[in-house]
């Protein structure tokens, strides 16, 4: 009964006109940034974060969340029509979506992507509602050792699920932890590694860091080559999939929902890996795997469903434990903290309106997205036609404004530009940015809990092994790190599948 009351309370919060308006703005902007290659949800959220300072935290977080899951819808449009993924999570949609468009079936491809996203997103929200609440209740019993071990587990899983070399991903975790130690010490309040720069006393802000690593570096990478956009001059018709299309794709959608949701919960999971794995599973289970890549509807339905379910699943560790699972939820964590909210189990205790309001807003947001996307596809196609030579200066302007307006500091702009080249070099040398950002965001939490645990145990590391949850988390870390000889944990298998799809 208590649970039902909470859900009804969530509806009461998000059905307020102002919250509905912000939800609509969020999903609309999300779709827009999803359509535009180069400006992802991360940049858009960072950019619009300062504008939420003047509105209520519930409205602000509803809008920011809307941008995140809305971007997954938009990403598919460019994948299908232009063969350029607007979002990394839509890369795999290019394979069959673009081929469907070439065969004159752009309409059903876009339609099934929208419906699949809706079903996946809604499935994810139901899961989020069912899991986040008990997890948050359970997490109230956690102490510093549990939190330290869970952070370690989160970081290790991020590196395990990464697509590149694991040692490189681990090195990025190390670099992220080093960067997170710049600024004020979480326990003593003393400054360290600030080099006398006053602005660094609060540490390097996560917004300029991520905008540099992902936004500016993406612009520099795209400037290297030439981005060719070939949009079909055919009329997009029959957006509503036929009964045969539904029959072909319904199981892919259902499987995509489950795969996406569970992978979304894992750190490093989210929408990207969910869509890749969903495609691999569909191909494996298909009666005609050889047709994949030639324009089969299952190749669009599964991944598009999975990436939306994955995005919603990524909210579970954030709301339940206060642990972000990818760079976008890391920015969301920062947004919650800027609004004076305490992410994790205390969010449910202290701000139930935010907790339930945001979760329930995702139902409505998903409905808005389906209604919005199908009739607006023509508009998105026009936006896709914007040439990159006009788009990239716009992205730079957005990044500059986003980085500056968080603290009104030019040092933040300089930090963003610095991390822009760092991110570019990382891409060239094949280092992933996600483990760095996650380690950076989780670093202070890790440090505080490690030091508190050691103080409690009088310097004994056994405290991490004598508590069951902490010991289990650390054991899983060890298995993932050193269990490469056990076939089930052989990371190469996953990497191989992803590489094959990439090729």
């Amino acid at each position: 009964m208590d649970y039902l009351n909470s859900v009804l309370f969530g509806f009461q919060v998000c059905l307020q006109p102002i919250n509905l308006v912000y939800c609509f703005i969020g999903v609309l902007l999300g779709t827009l940034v999803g359509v535009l290659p180069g400006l992802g949800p991360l940049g858009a959220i960072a950019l619009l974060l300062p504008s939420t300072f003047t509105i209520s935290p519930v409205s602000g977080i509803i809008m920011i969340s809307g941008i995140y899951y809305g971007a997954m819808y938009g990403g598919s449009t460019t994948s299908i029509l232009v063969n350029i993924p607007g979002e990394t999570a839509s890369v795999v949609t290019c394979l069959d979506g673009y081929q469907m468009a070439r065969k004159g079936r752009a309409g059903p491809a876009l339609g099934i992507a929208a419906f699949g996203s809706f079903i996946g997103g809604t499935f994810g929200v139901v899961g989020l509602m069912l899991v986040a609440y008990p997890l948050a209740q359970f997490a109230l019993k956690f102490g510093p050792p549990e939190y330290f071990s869970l952070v370690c587990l989160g970081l290790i899983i991020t590196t395990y699920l990464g697509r590149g070399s694991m040692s490189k991903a681990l090195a990025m975790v190390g670099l992220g932890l080093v960067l997170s130690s710049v600024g004020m010490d979480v326990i003593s309040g003393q400054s360290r590694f600030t080099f006398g720069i006053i602005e660094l006393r609060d540490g390097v802000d996560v917004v300029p860091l991520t905008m540099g690593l992902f936004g500016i570096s993406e612009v520099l990478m795209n400037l290297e080559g030439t981005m060719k956009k070939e949009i079909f001059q055919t009329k997009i018709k029959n957006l509503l999939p036929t009964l045969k299309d539904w029959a072909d794709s319904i199981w892919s959608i259902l499987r995509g929902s489950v795969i996406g949701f569970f992978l979304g919960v894992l750190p490093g999971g989210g929408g990207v890996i969910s869509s890749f794995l969903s495609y691999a599973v569909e191909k494996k289970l298909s009666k005609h795997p050889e047709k994949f890549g030639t324009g089969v509807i299952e190749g669009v339905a599964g991944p598009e469903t999975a990436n939306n379910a994955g995005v919603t699943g990524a909210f579970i560790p954030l709301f339940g434990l206060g642990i972000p699972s990818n760079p976008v939820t890391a920015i969301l964590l920062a947004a919650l903290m800027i609004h004076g909210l305490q992410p994790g189990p205390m969010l449910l205790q202290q701000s139930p309106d935010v907790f339930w309001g945001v979760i329930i807003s995702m139902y409505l947001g998903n409905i808005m997205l389906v209604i919005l996307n199908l009739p607006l596809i023509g508009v998105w196609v026009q936006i896709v036609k914007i040439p990159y030579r006009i788009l990239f200066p716009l992205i730079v302007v957005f990044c500059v404004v986003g980085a500056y307006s968080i603290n009104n500091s030019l040092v933040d702009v300089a930090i963003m530009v610095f991390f822009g080249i760092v991110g570019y070099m990382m891409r060239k040398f094949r280092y992933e940015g996600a483990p760095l950002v996650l380690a950076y965001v989780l670093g202070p939490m890790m440090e505080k809990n490690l030091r508190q645990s050691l103080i409690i145990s009088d310097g004994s590391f056994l405290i991490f092994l004598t508590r069951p949850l902490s010991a289990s988390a650390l054991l899983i870390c060890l298995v993932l790190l050193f269990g490469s000889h056990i076939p089930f944990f052989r990371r190469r298998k996953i990497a191989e599948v992803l590489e094959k799809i990439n090729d």
Partner: protein
Amino acid sequence: MRKSDQISSIVLIIVAIVVCFASIRIGLGTFNTPDLGFVPFFAGVFLGLTSLPTLIKATLGKKSEIAAPQEHVNLRKVIKAYIGLILYVAFLPLLGYPIGTFLLMLFFFKGVETMKWRWAVLTGTLIVLGSYLIFYVWLQCMLPVGLVDIRWLTRWII
């Protein structure tokens, strides 16, 4: 990738060593009373240790027999754009957002890309005006003012 892996891992190992020494300088404390440098020291050690496998693999590993096909990389464009950004950051306190960003846009359109002057000026003006109206006027974000305050112009336009 051999050479680039060697370079990148050596850079990371140097960073790790510097962090470790800096952490020792600010004080590690003990296990039961960890000090300021405790976690950064172990983060540095972790960074160094995890960079080592890449270095070893790149140095001792086999050379790949087939060289990967080289894609055409327009590095000049990247360098130009990045220098433009550095200059923009350096002069932003002086020029302020509207003038500084307009000059950056001109540089991008003319220096990095090859757009005609009139289109470059027009597009640059539209981007600056549009972003200024959206972020400064509508969303009330703060933007760098610079030595020449032209906010009166915005008020006058509105």
